[in-house]
């Protein structure tokens, strides 16, 4: 907390002294997460900070209070007015920001979509930094749960909202895997519930799952709010041995459940690395050392080589990281 406040002061100070602070004209990067107070994005910010420390770029972050579609726009405009070179953003809407992006890019500002892309609107941003190969999320989650329940029994999915694009892609892949891979033939997907990424709603939905399906063996929740709610419900109902919970969660959010045995394992990737990669990529593109086109290889000391893919998409890692009792102590985000 202390460090955070200091950061704020530093940012404020920097903003007041702009003009005199950069004799060497460092690249100015701003990151706009979905909303403030979300621990997930704090890790991305940390990645940016560490990256910029090494590269000598100037980094700030600003965020709206709510993850509502338009709440990022005033911040975006203000940053452009401040003359930043690179805007990295985790957009709250796949299309509401298009107009502002277009204008920023016409003035030479680089727009990076971080952590999620803008499906269908890829030509409004310069590149996307994604944490993992999203096609692997679905099968990987199914395998994780299957291994815990002996590849047999009723399972359910607790998702975010019915229209959440990422989650829907993953769920489709999960269904596909369950249907086509004979390994999972005995696992039966009984329902998909939607908790709207709201703790209360997710909790009620998870409770309804337990009530409606007495033979339920497992829940996959590919959203951080949902997986925590599901774990909490299973713990409260004292059914941890019967119903296994897997999903995508952050270590800090899930640590308790891992340590008390409610949850055996869950998955995620490294948001920190996203920030790091984004910083390296941004500085490289701005300085002309990296060509923003498919096939170019970006080298980040901590990550190794990352190749720019189709539609200028960069992925920090290929496979998801699995967290369990053995390794969770190594992570703090």
């Amino acid at each position, binding site marked *: 907390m202390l460090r955070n406040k200091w950061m704020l002061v530093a940012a404020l100070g920097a903003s007041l002294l702009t003009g005199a602070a950069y004799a060497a004209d460092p690249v100015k990067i701003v990151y706009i997460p979905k909303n403030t107070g979300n*621990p997930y994005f704090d890790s991305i910010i940390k990645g940016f900070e560490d990256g910029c420390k090494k590269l000598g770029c100037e980094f700030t972050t600003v965020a709206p209070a709510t993850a509502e579609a338009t709440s990022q726009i005033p911040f975006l405009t203000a940053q452009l007015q401040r003359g930043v070179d690179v805007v990295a953003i985790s957009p709250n809407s796949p299309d509401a920001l298009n107009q502002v992006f277009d204008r920023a890019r016409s003035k030479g500002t680089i727009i990076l979509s971080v952590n999620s892309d803008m499906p269908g609107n890829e030509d409004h941003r310069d590149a996307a930094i994604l944490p993992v190969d999203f096609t692997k999320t679905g099968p990987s989650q199914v395998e994780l749960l299957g291994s815990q329940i002996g590849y047999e029994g009723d399972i359910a999915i607790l998702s975010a909202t019915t229209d959440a694009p990422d989650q829907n892609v993953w769920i489709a892949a999960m269904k596909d895997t369950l249907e086509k891979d004979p390994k999972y033939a005995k696992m039966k997907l009984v329902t998909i*519930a939607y908790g709207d990424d709201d703790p209360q709603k997710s909790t009620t939905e998870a*409770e*309804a799952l337990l009530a*409606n399906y007495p033979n339920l063996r497992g829940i996959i929740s590919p959203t951080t709010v949902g997986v*925590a709610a599901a774990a909490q419900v299973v713990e*409260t109902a004292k059914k941890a041995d019967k119903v296994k919970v897997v999903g995508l969660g952050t270590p800090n959010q899930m640590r308790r459940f891992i*340590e008390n045995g409610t949850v055996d394992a869950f998955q995620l990737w490294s948001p920190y690395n996203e920030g790091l990669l984004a910083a390296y990529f941004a500085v490289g593109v701005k300085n002309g050392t990296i060509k923003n086109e498919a096939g170019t290889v970006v080298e980040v000391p901590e990550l190794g080589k990352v190749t720019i893919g189709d539609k200028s998409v960069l992925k920090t890692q290929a496979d998801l990281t699995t967290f369990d009792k053995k390794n969770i102590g190594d992570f703090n985000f």
Partner: protein
Amino acid sequence: MSLVRRLARAREAGILVMLVLFSLVVGLIEPRFLSGETVRIVLLAIPLIMVAAMGEMMVLLARHVDLSIGSILGFSAIAAGMVFRDHPEWPLFIGFAVAILSGAALGFVNGLIVTLFRLPSIIVTLGTLSLYRGLLFILSGSKQIDPNDIPEPIIRMAQTSPFGIPWIVIIAFAVALATWLFLTFTQVGRQIYAIGSNPGAAPLRGIRVVPVTILVFTLSGALAGLAGIIYAARFGYVNPGITGVGFEFTVIAAVVIGGVSINGGIGSVAGTMLGVLFLGAVQVALPILGVSGFWQNAIYGGIILIALVIDRTVRAGGIRGLLARGTA
């Protein structure tokens, strides 16, 4: 006139009938709804709303409204969570005290502004809704309180107690009982009803409207603070941007379903409890029926409007009075 009185008395009975009918209809569509498991889920879902609803009910009884309870809940939960996280060695009751006292303090400020400047509470608390949320972001440094920062005994409150019923349920019903005793058997409790019933006459009758009004807002804040602890217990973490957002509308919906008049003076603890139960049943029924969560807000809004019309009808002395022209 007798119709008015009968309707007024029948408020609680009416909600009970609504609750039973609703459960039966849902049960007919989806028999799984009528199970012991549902009762357990509903009981777990309602303490959060019930505790805050008791406070909001008192505010409405005094012919005011408190829109800031969601932010107060968030603030108190963060404050208590920070105590738990930064001082794990302190006894737990300090966290409780911090939550309840910080809530009471914010409620006190609401009451002070409303009475000191004679402003409509709805506008004042719309302002403090934003103000308190801002303060809680500042207090928390925009950092959430993670599950492993919340002590084990707090989490267990949502799971068990020596009596088998989870502590949070016991707390909720204890708060309801205390509220009932307070409103029914103390001078000041009756004065709350009197102020809401006729705010103009209250000071002429020797009622100290200003302190009583401030007290009501303070109690509402304190109970929202207590609800903050229940939130931490039930959901296992507190997030500055999520915890308590939109909570005020849920609570107001529950209270007005419970027959508490938005024009003050009318309402009972029993009715409010039924209102909370009804809302809990709706919340649990939606996923069981497979209705999209997107309907929830529309249903709340509709319920508030219907309750308003019913209240107006009762006060106007039935449908005929409602349709009578001219100025009332």
